[in-house]
């Protein structure tokens, strides 16, 4: 047996949504039982007596009269507008309104027919979403704080004072939520010598942070035991290669060495393990790249080769070590910043002090902006110019 809906009257009155018809001036001329029940009102107190906007909250009425009604007049129909009704007892009922204008043969508006959907569930859902978003934002702040703290433990809290040498460093994080894999350090060694290193671990995030931590302690320990930078890198290579057995290679590019005062100059020994060339700024105004070609990245191969160079920093000379977040910055859709670009951009800088160099590279990083997709670590060392000489 099929049962038919036989009463349109009943369907109208007890529909699962509210129906209300008004004159163009808003006066209610017909309203169904469902909507009256939601409002907690009697039919006789509403029909012909109140305007539809009287059923709205104050905010809803302003919105209705300034936006809804004019737009409805213009378009002839309007749907999905969220407003609040004022029910008896002062409770608010969130609803969704859809209205159409019924016109006569001459095109003049006669009635406005409106369906009213109960939106309490939807409102609860939206509030749930807002709460969810708040929670996610708080969680993100927490993750960023954690990443920042962890990052700080991977970098020296402050550079030590090295007699006769100026030092400056900077860490530029590419992301606030992720710990980067770049590192640097400057630390005392026996015999008025100072050790330093700077490098970049493959990968990002917690895994990279664990490796970065291992690298830092291994390098510092190895340098105290035998300060020869090639021995230091050999030692690190053995430790990293053993730690990363398996399919996922863990390695780093690193430049490390030592610096020792020699009269009013300084003598450096620098070894490179697959790292981008350092930039040397001379007191005479020239600058150049210090290539350590043939040095292999550290931790990827059981036996790696490292290349060493001796360098003398005279008064007024400076050297910049940096990680590849800088030279792999994107400058266009298909172009990247290279170390040659870096040398060109810093060409006018020499002679410069370590803080000058860091400040200049910071300006470059700002100019590259979002192009810097990887973290960048900078470490600069310089020997102060002679009294009366050029700064």
């Amino acid at each position, binding site marked *: 047996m099929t049962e038919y809906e036989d009463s349109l009257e009943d369907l109208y009155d007890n529909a699962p949504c509210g129906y209300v018809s008004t004159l163009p001036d808003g006066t209610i001329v017909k309203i169904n039982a469902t909507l009256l029940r939601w409002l907690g009102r009697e039919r006789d107190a509403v029909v012909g007596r109140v305007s539809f906007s009287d059923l709205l909250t104050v905010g809803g009425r302003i919105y209705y009269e300034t936006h809804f009604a004019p737009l409805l007049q213009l378009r002839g129909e309007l749907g999905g507008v969220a407003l609040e009704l004022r029910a008896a007892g002062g409770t608010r009922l969130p609803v969704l309104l859809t209205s159409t204008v019924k016109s006569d043969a001459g095109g003049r508006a006669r009635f406005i027919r409106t369906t009213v959907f109960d939106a309490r569930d939807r409102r609860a859902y939206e509030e749930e979403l807002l709460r969810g978003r708040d929670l996610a934002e708080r969680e993100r702040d927490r993750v960023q704080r954690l990443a920042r703290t962890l990052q700080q433990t991977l970098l020296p809290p402050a550079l030590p004072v090295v007699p006769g040498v100026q030092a400056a460093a900077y860490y530029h994080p590419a992301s606030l939520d992720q710990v980067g894999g770049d590192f640097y350090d400057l630390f005392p060694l026996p015999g008025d010598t100072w050790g330093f290193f700077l490098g970049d671990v493959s990968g990002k995030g917690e895994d990279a942070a664990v490796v970065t931590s291992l690298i830092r302690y291994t390098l510092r320990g190895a340098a105290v035991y035998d300060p020869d930078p090639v021995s230091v890198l050999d030692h690190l290579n053995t430790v990293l290669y053993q730690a990363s057995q398996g*399919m996922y290679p863990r390695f780093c590019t690193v430049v490390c060495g030592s610096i020792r005062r020699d009269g009013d100059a300084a003598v450096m020994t620098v070894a490179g393990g697959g790292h981008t060339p350092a930039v040397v700024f001379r007191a005479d105004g020239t600058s150049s790249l210090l290539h350590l070609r043939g040095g292999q990245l550290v931790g990827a191969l059981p036996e790696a080769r490292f290349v060493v160079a001796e360098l003398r920093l005279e008064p007024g000379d400076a050297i910049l070590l940096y990680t590849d977040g800088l030279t792999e910055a994107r400058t266009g859709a298909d172009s990247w910043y290279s170390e040659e670009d870096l040398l060109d951009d810093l060409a006018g800088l020499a002679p410069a002090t370590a803080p000058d160099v860091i400040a200049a590279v910071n300006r470059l990083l700002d100019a590259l902006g979002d192009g810097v997709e990887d973290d960048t670590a900078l470490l600069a060392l310089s020997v102060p110019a002679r009294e009366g000489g050029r700064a």
Partner: protein
Amino acid sequence: MNDFSVTVRTVAAGVVLTIRGDLDAHTSPGVLARTGELSLSRGQLLVVDLSGLRFCDSSGISAFIAARNLAVGAQADVVLVAVPRQVLRVLDVVGLGALFTVRSSVEDALSGR
């Protein structure tokens, strides 16, 4: 826009791994995972086709090292094909240029030319 992809094709002489797009810290874990699933027999070739590669940074290099480690472990050979100039530069900087055989096309690599 980075339209990155990595595909694997088995051929008589071994396996061709094709990498397209930007190989960086975001995409290299996917390549490492695919490389880990490859099976190579002794004397076979692992051909890594880079003709569609646009960019590779030091984390992308891990994919080449994984490919080499896999090949060395299986007593197979690894050949890089159509290595972009930018990647040759990175391989040179990290001192691995001499570690890989480089060919200009997959056909050349497979025929041993």
